[in-house]
């Protein structure tokens, strides 16, 4: 039982790290501010979610679990809002989104 | 220190150098926020969550916002180059100063002229150790408070904290004076 739990925690943590890493790769590879805002916030959300899930599993039933879940709730509210704020600021500045065939990187 | 600690230390040092060297003020501010976040994690790793919390709230949060508002109100100098040139004498002086401080405050064990290793501050048998131990042992019975950091701040070093709080207040008043405003608005 304990081994299964440990394995699950490991898998969740690895998944979280993987998605966070992919998001970092995306920020470097994607061409403009809008597409980068996509990956910077979104892949992060799942990464953080998986890590919090690992924390929940590691603690078992305690008040810390409620706090971890609350953390997840706030990430889900604030993370997309931050991405939206970035995209919006770019749009207000009049930055045109990159389209296919545009050489600008 | 663990591998995570070394990685964090490297991150903090790189961001600190980048902050000093970037010519674009906005970029420097953003890197500085990353530096503060790294420092906050570092403090937490070194079991000083109080300091970590302060660093995260003040360093990464408030300072960044205040600096951003400042460049929004004044100028953001444009830069032709990404990095500023290193001022070699100044850099040498800073590194030398840091090295001297590290040895004198006892962060690094060195051999003195008798060939004995000078103890690191806070290590067993040094005065630092006895003070730390004293606080950790007697804080609860003397003050009834379990967080020794708060006890040191508010009780043992209460007068210092008072001075610190007045400095914060004075900083606010100074900004009022500098901006020629008659009131806190």
């Amino acid at each position, binding site marked *: 039982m304990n081994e299964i739990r440990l394995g699950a925690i490991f898998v969740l943590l690895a998944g979280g790290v993987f998605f966070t890493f992919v998001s970092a790769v995306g920020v470097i590879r994607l061409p403009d501010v809008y597409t980068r805002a996509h990956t910077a916030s979104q892949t992060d959300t799942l990464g953080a979610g998986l890590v919090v899930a690992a924390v929940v599993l590691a603690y078992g039933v305690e008040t810390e679990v409620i706090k971890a879940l609350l953390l997840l709730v*706030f990430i889900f*509210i*604030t993370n997309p*809002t931050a991405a*939206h*704020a970035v995209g*919006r600021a770019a749009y*207000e500045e*009049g930055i045109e989104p990159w389209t296919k065939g545009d050489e600008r990187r | 220190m663990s591998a995570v600690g070394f990685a964090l230390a490297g991150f903090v040092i790189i961001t600190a150098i980048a902050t000093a060297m970037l010519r674009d003020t906005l970029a420097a501010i953003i890197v500085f926020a990353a530096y503060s976040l790294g420092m906050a994690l570092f403090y937490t790793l070194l079991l000083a*969550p*109080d300091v*970590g*919390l*302060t660093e995260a*709230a*003040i360093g990464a*949060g*408030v300072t960044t*916002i*205040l600096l951003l*508002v*400042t460049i*929004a*109100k004044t100028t953001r100098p444009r830069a032709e180059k990404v990095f500023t040139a290193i001022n070699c004498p100044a850099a040498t002086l800073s590194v030398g100063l840091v090295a001297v401080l590290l040895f004198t405050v006892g962060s690094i064990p060195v051999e003195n002229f008798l060939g004995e290793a000078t103890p690191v501050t806070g290590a067993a048998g040094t005065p630092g150790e006895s003070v730390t131990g004293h606080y950790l042992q007697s804080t609860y019975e*003397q*003050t*009834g*408070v*379990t*967080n020794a*950091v*708060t*006890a040191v*701040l*508010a*009780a043992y070093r*209460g*007068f210092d*904290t*008072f001075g610190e*709080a*007045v400095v*914060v*207040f004075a*900083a*606010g008043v100074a*900004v*009022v004076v500098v*901006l*020629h*405003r*008659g*009131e*806190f*608005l």
Partner: protein
Amino acid sequence: MSGSDSIRPYTESEIIMTAVRIVAPFVLTYGLFITFHGADSPGGGFQGGALIGVVVFMLAFAFGIAPTREWVGSGLMTALAAGGVIVFVSVGLGTLALGGKFLEYGLYEPFLGPDATKWGMEAIEIGGVAAIVSGVIMALFFLTAAGYASQGGEDV
């Protein structure tokens, strides 16, 4: 941007405003929690005060700096910053008046019971440090955002 005859109005984002409306009370509660629990867990007046100030920053970014400044009011910031210093000094001088040393909380035991030291520290953390820090942080933000007074620059 071409010189179009009509100007596109600057609309604050509904999403940001609503998110801030939802998150603000939780951040404020957390800031006060940290302030009140500095004695037993990580935290204290500096950290809590900073978080309390940050709530105002959040509102200012979502709803505009000028309306938020009006909503907060200069009186509150002055009261917090100056009042904090007064509270801190009073607690310290109180012990002097009782014949002890500056901030010798133990002397409050006749009034506050056996936990007098703890209550005294709470008083300076909450009434003193947290108030000063939150008041000064808000004031610094609004002052910097408003710029020089000599140009009559009130619009932000």
